[in-house]
């Protein structure tokens, strides 16, 4: 806070004898604009906070009533499930696609390139509606869809169809982006590492899993965390398929009660809380993969 505490010039003039340079005090550069910016920011934040508290339109009592109701908690759980399945399946497929794109085989490279091209080009919402309707189609035709064992844990038959479609759409979409993130991370690993591993006769898969991926993780992680957070909030797009995730659920409630703002705040605060939790996890995972590095 030493905005005006510059020592008067005359003061130094009173101490000329110690001029051998040993008794001098170091004064850091003064940054007055930093303090101006801090004050301006604090003023804006306080104003906003004051508004939150005093403006009755926020209806905090309504917020408090709905924040932890069972319907909302259930919706948060669905949102988390969508994020989890989308992330796990998306990155699992993404890793495969990334190594296909890096492979020496022109066939595998072309397939991976085609996949990434297609799934990055089609808007997620279009894709979701497509899978959603496809699920209906298969149901009518009574053909069993091999969606995998993981998807059959849901309550009603109708929900299984919609959930599976949503997870499939999110995961396939996510895989295209994950593939590029993983590929970028692998490219960032020094080629000498692969050469050293090859010269030691370490088998190919082991080389990827033990030597390349752990090092690639350092550059994959920040981008991957971005993608997961983005997917987490992006699950709200699934509300178009009437799946009871967080955003859909608050829409249902404010459709019934007309209390739009406090219910949007319910969703917002949940998204904030869970994104914060993800960021904390990210911090620790990044620290784990920083083993043996200096920064």
């Amino acid at each position: 806070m030493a905005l005006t505490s510059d020592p008067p010039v005359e003061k130094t003039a009173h101490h000329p004898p110690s001029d051998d340079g040993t008794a001098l005090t170091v004064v850091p550069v003064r940054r007055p604009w930093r303090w101006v910016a801090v004050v301006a920011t604090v003023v804006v934040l306080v104003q906003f906070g004051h508004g939150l508290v005093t403006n009755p339109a926020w209806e905090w009592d309504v917020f408090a009533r709905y924040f932890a109701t069972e319907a909302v908690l259930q919706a948060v759980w669905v949102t988390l499930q969508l994020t989890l399945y989308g992330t796990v399946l998306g990155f699992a497929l993404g890793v495969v696609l990334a190594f296909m794109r890096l492979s020496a085989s022109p066939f595998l490279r072309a397939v991976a390139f085609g996949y990434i091209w297609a799934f990055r080009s089609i808007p997620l919402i279009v894709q979701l509606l497509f899978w959603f309707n496809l699920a209906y189609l298969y149901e009518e035709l009574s053909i069993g869809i091999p969606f995998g064992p993981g998807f059959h844990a849901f309550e009603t038959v109708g929900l299984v169809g919609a959930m599976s479609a949503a997870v499939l759409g999110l995961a396939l979409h996510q895989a295209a982006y994950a593939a590029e993130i993983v590929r970028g991370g692998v490219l960032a690993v020094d080629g000498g590492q692969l050469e050293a591993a090859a010269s030691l006769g370490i088998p190919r898969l082991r080389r990827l899993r033990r030597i390349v991926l752990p090092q690639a993780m350092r550059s994959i992680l920040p981008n991957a965390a971005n993608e997961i957070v983005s997917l987490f909030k992006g699950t709200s797009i699934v509300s178009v398929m009437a799946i009871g995730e967080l955003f859909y659920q608050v829409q249902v409630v404010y459709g019934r009660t007309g209390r739009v703002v406090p219910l949007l705040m319910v969703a917002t605060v949940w998204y904030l809380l869970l994104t914060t939790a993800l960021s904390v996890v990210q911090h620790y995972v990044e620290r784990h993969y920083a083993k043996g590095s200096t920064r």
Partner: protein
Amino acid sequence: MSATAAPPATAPKVALRGVRKSFGDVEVLRGVDLDVAPGEVTVVLGPSGSGKSTLLRTINHLEKVDGGSVSVDGVLVGYRRSGNKLYELREREILRQRTRIGFVFQNFHLFPHLTVLENITEAPVSALRRPRPAAEEAARRLLARVGLADRAEAYPRQLSGGQQQRVAIARALALEPGLLLFDEPTSALDPELVGEVLDVIRDLAAAGTTMIVVTHEIGFAREVADTVVFMDEGRIVERGTPAEVLDRPAHERTRAFLSKVL
């Protein structure tokens, strides 16, 4: 260790025949023949760009050859011969061949996210399927041999360059290879750290390990080499005992090179 100028009676450990290699339009190796006898230390000298590193890298198939052949212990490296054709081997077979050939890089290429001990045990455990406890015990013995018994749990970045290169040598030795290849092992080191790495290589030579060393250390070549090879522009210009090549070079280009580095 004794200088054997006469061609060895036994089968060569390494035999290169007419090895050619180009990178794009640049012909890096223009037909190289070289025999290395078992237990022999061969030092390869030559100006930069003469192809000596590429030559070394063809011996464990890090570099594919465009023509000619490389064999170690009488077995072709990287290829299988059928009639007049060489068929490239599958990666798995090439990897198996490489476990018998140790390679030490100029820039160490230690795995930075693994400890010194993990760096050394990785290949024995994954490539030779040794049980981990046995591999660790062997790794600790190797670390003692290169004078780093107390650094097993360190990460590579916590070590000096000389220590890292000694770990890299221990890592190559962990596969108990019959042949060691060194690609300018001291070129990335501060001058005061060169000695400790050369000491380790000197010990290996004394123990009778077959080695091919690409280096710029003329003094080391004179002291340790059984055979010195001088390369220029992708060819072997001269080959002989250190005394022959270093003190009485027959070729003008060898003399010109030595006059610059000595």
